[in-house]
């Protein structure tokens, strides 16, 4: 699918096309270089949140401006981009982000992981296998994993600098004691490379094991909080838990996708109406569709 066919007549291509001053990938060269320099430090210190001069983007803060800046800073003429939100390529925010990337670069887009080189995602890791030639860009609303136990930024910086995560452990322990289970939902805190605790964005626990020892590079962008961090391939990623409390992904109790029958993908529920039971579908719509057409 080429850019012009899809985006003809869209608001954006006429703005971008009309102004020859708008650079390749929207950002001016200085901005791109600044983001790139931050990313290069991020991959050398896995899990450390690198501050960067986050620019304002055509999407609002909190809506993926950080992920978008990363994608725009790394993208080249021959890249192919996939953008999903909650696992869905057709979610309106995913569509909006994708068209921003495509109309400002002229590159191709795809809904298939196997065809893509850059995958920008909000809140999910695609079910398909990703290999070393893939780069996963995750949108991060709150990059600070210790936010729940500490508010003061100076103290937070010290805790990461000294790898002093004791308060985090205490809070998980108290959670388990009070509630019988660790009640952390998405964005489960993980220890990366045995050194930094990271916020894994609100990806479900289901996706956490995919970050560990992956073949692909994962870049995390927090535009509003102005930080980037990275998990290189083949890196140790351990969810924080206790020896006798195994890490739990979301249980579905045998539910299956009503479209493709899968019980091995992350499913989301549509509540039933009028007393009917709810139904489940795969969150990863492209994966589900491919399964059905095989």
């Amino acid at each position, binding site marked *: 699918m080429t850019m012009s066919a899809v985006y003809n007549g869209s608001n954006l291509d006429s703005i971008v096309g009309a102004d020859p001053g708008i650079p390749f990938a929207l950002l001016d060269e200085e901005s791109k270089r600044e983001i790139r320099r931050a990313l290069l430090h991020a991959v050398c210190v896995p899990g450390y949140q690198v501050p960067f001069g986050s620019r304002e983007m055509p999407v609002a803060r909190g809506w993926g401006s950080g992920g978008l800046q990363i994608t725009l800073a790394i993208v080249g003429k021959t890249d192919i981009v996939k953008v999903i939100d909650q696992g869905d390529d057709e979610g309106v925010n995913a569509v909006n982000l994708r068209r921003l990337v495509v109309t400002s670069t002229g590159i191709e887009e795809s809904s298939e992981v196997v065809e893509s080189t850059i995958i920008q995602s909000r809140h999910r890791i695609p079910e398909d296998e990703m290999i070393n030639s893939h780069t996963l860009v995750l949108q991060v609303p709150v990059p600070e994993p210790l936010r729940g136990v500490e508010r003061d930024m100076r103290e937070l910086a010290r805790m990461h600098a000294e790898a002093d995560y004791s308060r985090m452990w205490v809070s998980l322990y108290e959670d388990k004691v009070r509630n019988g289970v660790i*009640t952390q939902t*998405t964005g489960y805190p993980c220890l990366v490379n045995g050194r930094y605790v990271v916020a894994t964005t609100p990806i479900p626990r289901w996706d956490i094991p995919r970050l560990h020892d992956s073949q692909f590079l994962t870049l995390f962008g927090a535009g509003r909080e102005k930080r980037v961090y990275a998990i290189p391939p083949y890196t140790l990623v351990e969810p924080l838990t206790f020896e006798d409390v195994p890490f739990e992904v979301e249980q579905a109790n045998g539910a299956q996708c009503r479209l493709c029958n899968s019980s091995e993908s992350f499913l989301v529920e549509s509540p039933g109406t009028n007393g009917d039971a709810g139904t489940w579908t795969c969150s990863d719509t492209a994966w589900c569709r491919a399964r059905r057409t095989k």
Partner: protein
Amino acid sequence: MGYAAARGGLTAIRNAEDLVRTLRDMDESEQIELDQFIGRLRLLVDRIMGEAGMWEPRLTALAIRQAEGDHIESVHLLRAYKSTLPRIASTEPIHVDEMRLLRRVVPAFREPGGPQILGRSTDYSARMLDPRSGSGATASLEPEVATQIADNSSTVQTNTPRLMNVLRDMDLLTDRRRTDDPEPFDITRTPARPPAPRSARLSSMARAETGALLNQWYRNILGPDGYLHEVTLGEVRHGELPIRIKHPYTNGSVSIGSLRVTEVEAIEDLNGVDEDRDRFDIGYGLCLGHNERKAIAMANLDIACHRDGSKSSLEQSILLTTDGLDSAGFLEHLKLPHYVTFRSMMERKIAVRNARPTVQKGDKS
């Protein structure tokens, strides 16, 4: 079926955009021209320029019109546009004493050195809704005369003595002048975090959302935080400053235009146990355009931060919670689909319930 699950996300977006554009641009009323914003809604334009951190009245007018008057959207349009522009130069440092004064009041003294110019201000106007305002019926001066008075072109006021210097001459001011000359912190290139240099605080506040700064100030007076008390204002100025850059070839100084700012000096009566009780200190505020409440709030919060000395989280609040785009963007992101997170939360609720019988059975482990 939610909008996320519908096919054709692009169609949905396009339809929404078309609707917005058509209803906005094709409204029955007359189209508003850009010079009407600048001429008749100048205070709105000034406020938006200050929050965007960009002096360009015509582009600002365009943004306000495109955003249908939403001030956060207007600021967003301008700042996002700025992200596509290369930075080609920095200005020479400008001393605020070069300000061509359009307005100056000094509450601390009845007769400060230099003039007090009430200028173009509604401070002492009666707040009575006037159905004739906007028509020519209320104009009591000839337009040329009014302009001349407003511009003070007959008596150009620059280098007006500053109350701060008066106090310093009377040895009533703590001396916080630096002997080094550090580069100002650039918040558009590096995120400011506490503990931050003063230039980072001041520039963050200069670009902050006006209401946010106002709220920060007020809650610190009357709210439970109670960091500061009211100051006495030394200078409240609105005027025009020249912009100069270094010529790339001749290296000489070249004037490329001017802009207007509002500047405030706030005098703090030091009364802390470890403070110098026989002296005053000064807080400073400066913002683009004519926006007095913002500059006054800035000056108050500047001195409050300094006196707080990083003991509390005041500096963090100012640096990190007063940007309009950050706060509004994050708030409104709640409208995005969150069904993956929600599914995970529901799962944990069930897990907690399932775990409960074990605890209730008196398991002592």
